Structures are given as structure tokens and as C-alpha cells.
């Protein structure tokens, strides 16, 4: 286990290094650096600019600058956001938990709904239930997340069931922590539901075909023939085998999920990474944009690692190979 994880980690580190380099090249490409914009701001003294220039090694040759940038990154320093006037790492540390909360809730909802429904649908393949869910998942795959979020917003407005926008309402200052948590959860429902609805389709279709394939395997017939109890057959034979491809998919789906979460955040005003990034792009806050790109990559890579580890725990064949 440890060896496999270490192998994955070293591989990931290489990819991460590539992304750091990529984002650095992108920053280098941008016309001017962020200091040239700061220099126009009369509120910032030339001394501050000079010290920042030295700190980030601006004006030095390309590779020296890259070394400076790497050294700063190793110290957890992602640069300075000139639109918020705080270090980028502070901003990201504030926003990442919110994005994770939204994404994880959506993952739990989508998997919690798609897996049982897919097993149910596959057992009555071609039935009305199965066919209607299949068409529904076709739609779910085809509706872009931003449109889905807009429709969710419309629903909230028409019915008044959900609070609109933001992550918390203006509560009385005396509200207890329990009340505040409840408020946050109420705001979480609609964004996470729309996000989950978008990833339901892929999950349903994959789980369904996976269950169908396992059902047709000889070992299922053998298990039946041995007279094993239905519950044992279901959990140990059917489910464990069928869920494997989905765990692999999780890593791949996560990228789409994070992008979708970004759109959802922007439309519902959920204060996560996506909204932060959009603001950063709009105000040309380069360090913040690149910090966001890096953070997005880190989240995705960690998700992949998690999926690998899950697969390792679930599938003895994978364990033997490594």
C-alpha cells in the first residue's frame, strides 16, 4: 500500500511540477507584470514596489525567475493579489473549503442516487423505469452546468423553497453556531443538487452497464448455484465488482465536476474558488489566477490519488499487481 501510494505521489509531483511551469510560462506571456499595474496606483509607494520586485525576482532572466517562484511556492507563498490586497494563499485558503463542501456534497448526492437506481434499473433492463432513467441521464449529460444552474435559480425564484444566492443570509448577530450551520446547509441544497444532477447521467449509465456485465458473468451463476444468500451475492459478488469502473471514473469525472462547480458558484454566488477565479480574471489579478489554476490542479490530483487508493482497497487484483 505505502509503496503504491509513494509511486503515485512521485508521479503526481512530476505532473504538478509541469503545471507550475505551465502557469509560470503563462504569467510570463502576459503583457507586463502585475507590478506595472501597481506602479500606476498612487496609493502604493515605489519602495513597496521595489521590494516586491526583488522578492519575486522580476526583471531577472526567465529561469532565475522560475527558481524564485518555486522557492516562494515551497514556502506556501503564491504571490500577492493586488485586487484584494492580501496574499493569494490567504484568499485560496478561505475559498477552498467552500468549493470542497459544494463538490463533495454533490458527489455524495449523485453517487447515493445513481448507484442504487442503476442496480435497480439494470435488474429490470429495458423496463419502463430503466428506460426513463436512461433518457433522463442522456439529458443530464447534455445540459451544460451553467444552464442547469440558471434553471435551478429560476426554480428557487418561482417556488421560494430555497434561499437565492450566497452561502449565508444576513442573520442576527446573536445567532448560535447551530443556527448558522443550518443556514449554510439551506444555502447548500440548491447548488449541490444542480451540480449532482449534472453528474448523475454519466454515473447511472456507467453503473448500469457495469452491473449488466457482472450479472452475465459465470461466477454469478456459480454463486447462485452454490445457494449463497441473496445478500451475500449482492454485496460480495455483484456490487464490489460493478463499482470498480466507477471508482476509476471518479478521478476523471472530478475535473468536470470542479469546472461545473465553478459555474455553479458563479451563478449562485457561492463563495468558492470558481467565483474567486472569475473575479481574478476580470480584474487581471494574475497571481490570483495562477494560484487558482494551481489549486484546481492540486484538488484534481488529490482526487485522483484518493480514487487510486480506494481502488487499491476495493480490488485485490490491483493490490497484487503493485
Amino acid at each position, binding site marked *: 500500500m505505502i509503496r503504491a501510494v509513494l509511486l503515485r505521489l512521485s508521479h503526481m509531483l*512530476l*505532473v*504538478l511540477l*509541469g*503545471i507550475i511551469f*505551465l*502557469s509560470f510560462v*503563462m*504569467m510570463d*506571456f*502576459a*503583457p507586463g507584470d502585475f507590478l506595472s499595474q501597481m506602479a500606476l496606483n498612487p496609493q502604493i509607494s515605489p519602495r513597496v514596489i521595489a521590494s516586491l520586485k526583488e522578492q519575486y525576482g522580476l526583471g531577472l532572466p526567465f529561469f532565475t525567475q522560475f527558481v524564485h517562484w518555486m522557492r516562494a511556492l515551497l514556502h506556501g507563498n503564491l504571490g500577492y493579489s493586488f485586487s484584494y490586497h492580501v496574499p493569494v494563499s490567504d484568499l485560496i485558503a478561505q475559498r477552498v473549503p467552500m468549493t470542497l463542501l459544494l463538490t463533495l456534497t454533490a458527489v455524495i448526492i449523485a453517487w447515493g442516487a445513481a448507484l442504487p437506481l442503476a442496480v435497480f434499473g439494470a435488474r429490470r433492463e429495458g423496463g419502463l423505469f430503466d428506460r426513463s432513467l436512461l433518457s433522463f441521464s*442522456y*439529458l443530464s*449529460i*447534455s*445540459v*451544460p452546468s*451553467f*444552464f442547469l444552474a*440558471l*434553471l435551478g*435559480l*429560476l426554480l428557487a*425564484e418561482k417556488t421560494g423553497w430555497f434561499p*437565492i444566492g450566497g452561502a449565508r443570509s444576513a442573520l442576527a448577530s446573536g445567532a448560535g453556531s447551530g443556527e448558522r450551520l443550518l443556514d449554510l446547509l439551506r444555502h447548500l441544497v440548491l447548488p449541490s443538487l444542480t451540480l449532482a444532477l449534472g453528474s448523475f447521467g454519466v454515473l447511472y449509465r456507467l453503473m448500469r452497464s457495469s452491473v449488466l456485465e457482472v450479472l452475465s458473468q459465470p461466477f454469478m451463476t456459480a454463486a447462485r448455484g452454490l445457494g449463497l444468500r441473496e445478500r451475500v451475492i449482492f454485496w460480495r459478488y455483484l456490487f464490489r465488482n460493478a463499482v470498480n469502473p466507477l471508482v476509476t471514473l471518479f478521478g476523471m469525472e*472530478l*475535473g*468536470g465536476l*470542479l*469546472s461545473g462547480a*465553478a*459555474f455553479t458558484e*458563479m*451563478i449562485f454566488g457561492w463563495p468558492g474558488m*470558481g467565483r474567486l*477565479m*472569475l473575479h*481574478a*480574471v*476580470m480584474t*487581471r489579478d*494574475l497571481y490570483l*489566477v*495562477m494560484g*487558482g*489554476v494551481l489549486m*484546481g*490542479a492540486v*484538488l*484534481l*490530483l488529490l482526487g*485522483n490519488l484518493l480514487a487510486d487508493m480506494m481502488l487499491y482497497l476495493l480490488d485485490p487484483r490491483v493490490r497484487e499487481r503493485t
Partner: protein
Amino acid sequence: MREGAGTFLRRVGLSGVMLILLGITSLFAEFLAPYRYDAVRFDLPYAPAVWPEMGKGGLVVPVLALRDPVRRRYVKSGRTVPLRFFCRGEAYTMWGIIRSSRHLVCARSPGRLYLMGGDLFGRDLFSRLLYGMRFSFLLSLLGVAISFSIGTVVGMVAGYAGGWTDRILMRLSEIVMAVPALYLLMGLRSIVPYGLSSEAITLIITGSLSLIGWASLSRVVRGLVLSLSGRDFILSAVAAGASPARVIFRHLLPNMRYYLLVSVTLSIPAFIVGEAGLSFLGLGLSEPHPSLGNILAESQSLETMNSAPWLLASGGLIVLLVVLFNRLGDLLREVPGEGNGSHR
């Protein structure tokens, strides 16, 4: 391709036929749209749909009157203007070469034909959707062409050369795929200056989307090359002294074309949605040029959604295009045709 029209139609199915029709429709947007995409009527903000009616002497278009400017309530004023066909309207230059002012239908001012309603500036939504759909088609085809070329070349080289070349190229594609697409798009968008012409923006969006799209395609191609190159006909070609170019162009590519066609078809929706998403956020094509994304962006506020829900139709059009391309891809994959049999 040596096949009759019947075979072709059976193969592409209803979704293929609909896509071709939509493509042709958008190609002739200048002629088919009653108005230019930027023809404004400031006196008719968020005008509802106005359809032709039967009147004296043929079809007529009722003239709208703004009854309540605050709530934007419209009534039919009772006046009408005749609806004419193949008439002279606003002048245009189709595809940049054909100068004309003929339109399929027009209604003379003060009447105005709103088949699907209008937007804040009184521009005709139907016309804007036609132009926007054309933009989606052109951009996604161009984008697919670029990412497909890069992806095929990279996948071929990686799969065929193997070793370090393979490792480096695949790490490169992993780097691209390890960043959530929207994050990478925003990163790329932030380094180009604002205030560019719409042509430049189009190229930048297409370029950014292709820069992301090639990665997954190259992995598909590499997998195909690897699975094919162990097979007898490739081994014998190599043994017979065929050059790598000959092996690739004569043996590998022809055997892969079917799979490539399927994966290209299935990758088009990503371009349509990617462009629409960027334009929706205001990072893509900007006003007055219509894109399915920036039309949808107009209906972002709850107030607009209430007073002009028809603007959401652009989202519906995106969904339709994506569904059709997905269906077409699935259909192509299912058809047991050539290529399928040769290496299964």
C-alpha cells in the same frame, strides 16, 4: 466514400439529418434571419413573440405598442403591416462575398416580426440565435480540426515511437488534463489583453479549447496505435521494410478512421459548451456579436428571467446541439461497419 444516399442517411440517423439541416440553416443566416443580429429597436425592449396573422390581403404582422414601460407590458395596437416574402430588407454581405438585401421574410417598420421575442435592445432573438448557432458550428468544427490534428500526430508519434518520446508526450497530456478545464481556460484567458476584435477573440477561444482538447484525443489515438501495432498485418508490413510513414498512412490511419470519426463527433459538444460557457461568463465573444452563451447570459438576472423567459431558449439550443452530436456519435459507434470488423 462509396455509398449511396440511403446508406448515408441510415448511418447518420435522424440526429445526423437534423444536424445537417441546422447547419445549412445557420449557413444562410443572413438570408433566413428577418433582421441583422445587431438591428436594434430601442422602443421595443423585451418584446414578446409576434407571429404573423391572417388579415386582409394575406399574412400581416401586428404592430406592438408598449403599454406599461415599467413592467414592459405590450398590447397589439390594432395596426398591422403586411408580411412579405423574398423581399428587400437590411443589406448584408453573405459569407463576406455575396452582397444582397433579400430576406426570406420581412415586415416593414413600425411592425416587427419577433418569432421568438426580443431582447433588451429590441433585437430579434430568432435572428440572433441563427447567427449564434453558426458561430457555435464554425468554432467547434475549427476547434475540432485543430485539436484533432494535434491529438492524432501526438498520439501516433507516442504510440509508434514508444520509449522516452512516449513517456514525455503522455506526461504532457497528463499535465493538460490535470487542470480542471474551466480553470485552465480562465488562466489562458487572463493572459490575453482585453478590447480585442471579435475575430481575434474567436481565434483565442478556439485556440484555448483546442489546447485542452488535444490531450484526451491523443491518448485515444495512442491506445489505438498500441493495440494495432502488435497485429500481424502491421508486423508484416514492418518486416517487409515499409517506412514508418508508409506504415502510419497506409496501415494504421485507415484502420483507425472509424474510431477517430466517433471520438471526433463525441468531442464536438465540449467545444460548443466550452465556447458558450466562456461567452456566458463574459470571457468570450462580446456584444453585439451573438453567441449562444452571451445570449443566455442576458437572462442571468431573475428580473429578466421573469420578464423575458424566452431568452432561455439559447440554453435549449445548446442542449439540442449537444444531444444531437452525442446521439450521432453513439449511432456511428453502434453501426457494425467497415473498420469495426478488421480489428475486433
